[in-house]
């Protein structure tokens, strides 16, 4: 055991109860109890006992869902560790347990040094308060003393590039200003251990780069960073080591390139087509429970024909009214992080800021033939609003193939390009 271990997880497990033990209201509990007492069938039985997802791998055991199973690892001082894994693999649960938002069911974690967690930017920001007031509020929520915030205040404002707007209520800020200020507070925390969940994906690219820079500086100062992200570019850029979470267990640990390779190849051998789970097994206000390729004939597939179009289907469920929602889709190259296409559903629709009603939705994006050249690609879909990311599914692999042999038919070879779109040539004598 190295003396420099600052985080040690020993056999950490976390179970959630599905369909909860009671009915959520005293009235129904009494009703059930009264019925049982008279030996009558429980009028509420159906709701909690029968309408349960039948099967979801081996992570469901009776009415329990194993979000984390026997997770153990050691992290040394000064390491910057990325945590990767599919949707519902347990990454966020792990971070929530380490940051003490929820208690583990068994196992234990030892930590050395001051811990700060950043699971969201601008936690507790109040729209009516000014930027200045929110800096103090957010700082205090993140565990800074008033004295500490005061001494770093100028630095925070400068990093955020807010300038004279610091005394304006944040409800008048643009989303960019809001995120910059919120992140700036967090970036000036000086904990020995920093836990970050997916917060960098908001904000503009330039600011993201500066934040990433600051993150790696933090690592160089001898601080330890645990970084959960779907952004593999960011993970490989700032985390030398990574942990892969799979089905609530540690799938791999080690240097980031190897772990990412394992993560991306995990899907290839699978017989499953796309991603599809029971929405009940996912937690969150908005969840994606299906991401699949649909062929021209309407069947799900992981292979698309070069000369035919295909569609991508995103199934999602909203559990509450969320305004400013956007569902996005990305097509990534074979390396898993070079983005080829990035689309978001309400881009052409000005009603995007209206609250969408809770319920299940199916979004379909049509891709015309030959938009993508032959080869392997990855799909990635996400639901986000201005300030938070609700759900991300990625690593859904598909292939574009040329079964018709159109390329050979034309007597050509595959051109080294990502798109095979045929554009008209017009030739005139000059």
């Amino acid at each position: 055991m190295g003396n420099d271990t600052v985080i040690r997880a020993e056999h950490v497990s976390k179970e959630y109860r599905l369909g909860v033990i009671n009915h959520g209201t005293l009235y129904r509990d009494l009703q059930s109890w009264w019925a049982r007492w008279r030996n009558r069938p429980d009028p509420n039985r159906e709701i909690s006992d029968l309408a349960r997802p039948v099967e979801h791998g081996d992570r469901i055991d009776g009415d329990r869902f194993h979000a984390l199973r026997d997770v153990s690892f050691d992290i040394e001082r000064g390491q910057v560790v990325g945590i990767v894994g599919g949707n519902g693999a347990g990454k966020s649960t792990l971070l929530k347990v380490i940051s003490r938002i929820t208690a583990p069911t068994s196992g234990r974690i030892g930590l050395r040094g001051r811990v700060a967690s950043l699971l969201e930017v601008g936690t507790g920001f109040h729209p009516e308060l000014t930027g200045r007031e929110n800096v103090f509020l957010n700082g205090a929520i993140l565990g800074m003393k008033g004295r500490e915030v005061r001494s770093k205040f100028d630095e925070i404002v400068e990093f955020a590039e807010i300038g004279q707007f610091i005394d304006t209520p944040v409800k008048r800020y643009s989303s960019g200003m809001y995120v910059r200020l919120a992140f700036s507070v967090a970036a000036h925390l000086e904990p020995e251990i920093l836990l970050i969940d997916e917060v960098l994906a908001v904000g503009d690219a330039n600011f993201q780069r500066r934040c990433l820079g600051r993150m790696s500086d933090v690592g160089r100062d001898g601080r330890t960073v645990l970084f959960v992200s779907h952004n593999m570019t960011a993970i490989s850029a700032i985390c030398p080591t990574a942990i892969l979470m799979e089905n609530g267990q540690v799938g791999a640990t080690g240097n980031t390139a190897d772990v990412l390779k394992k993560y991306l190849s995990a899907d290839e051998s699978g017989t499953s087509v796309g991603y599809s789970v029971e929405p009940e097994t996912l937690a969150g206000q908005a969840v994606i429970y299906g991401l699949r390729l649909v062929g021209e004939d309407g069947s799900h597939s992981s292979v698309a024909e070069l000369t035919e179009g295909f569609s991508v289907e995103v199934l999602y469920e909203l559990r509450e009214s969320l305004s400013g929602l956007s569902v996005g889709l990305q097509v990534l190259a074979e390396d898993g992080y070079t983005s080829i296409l990035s689309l978001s559903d309400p881009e052409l629709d000005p009603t995007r800021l209206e609250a969408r009603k809770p319920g299940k939705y199916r979004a379909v994006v049509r891709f015309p033939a030959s938009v993508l050249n032959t080869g392997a690609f990855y799909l990635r879909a996400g639901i986000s609003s201005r300030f938070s990311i609700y759900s991300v599914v990625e690593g859904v692999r598909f292939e574009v193939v040329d079964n018709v042999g159109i390329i050979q038919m034309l007597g050509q070879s595959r051109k080294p390009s990502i798109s095979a779109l045929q554009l008209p040539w017009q030739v005139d004598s000059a």
Partner: protein
Amino acid sequence: MKHPDDFRSKWDLVIQPRTRLVNVDLGAVWAYRDLAWTLFRRDFSTFYKQTILGPIWYILQPLLSSLIYLFVFGAIANIPTDGLPPFLFYLSGLVVWSYFSTCFTNNSQVFSKNSALFGKVYFPRLVVPISIAMSALVTFAIQFALLIATTFVFQLLGARVAFSFLAILLAPIVVAYVALLGIGVGLITSALTIRFRDLAYVAGFAVQLWMYASPVVYPLSKVPSRFQWLFDINPMSAPIELLRSLAFGTPIPPVVLILCNLGVTSALFLAGIILFSRAESTAMDTV
């Protein structure tokens, strides 16, 4: 790891499943005192930024309620008021009562109102109930000042009321007692509403009924002795009666009642803290 304590001593912080009955780390609460203060300032300034009528409402509400009681319980039911002008009698009772009901109501919603915050960041959750009691203190101070001002008006109008400024010195004791009680009962309710959501509605109604079971609109001295025990176990009877006797020299409640009230309040406060600390570590899984 042969001894469990071995692990605990090696690390600054150990995260484990909840094992102990009471899981309150007062040191951590103290370390986050700046947060309690900041949350208090947030509540204070957002309240005054959002409503113009806010502070005036704090003054109007007890005045209007006292006027209605004056009509219903004074003029129609003719309930005596320990020789005090009835208006001052009701107002003094209401000032103490509304501090309790604010502490109680706001604390009973502590998980549902703060779920966004609790789900994203850790801090000792007890900081929030403390900041709620602090915020309610501002209202109490305004209303207590109103009581003093109204007494002066009565004196100017020739009413024979003596106001002892001892009450101002001793009010903090009464306030601290009521805060503990409001936090205790509020936290019990908040922990239970995680399981039973409909309790939130019951709580709102219960607090109204409770007021009529407390000596707000009638004096303890007029309660028939066979009902006296009800007031011994109602922990709000002592603070209301005590503040009145401190300020206006009405009869001091019996020592038995004060001691019984103290016992009930301590029990409720402890129960609240225990239930809250048990609920806080897993509350975010269900809310």
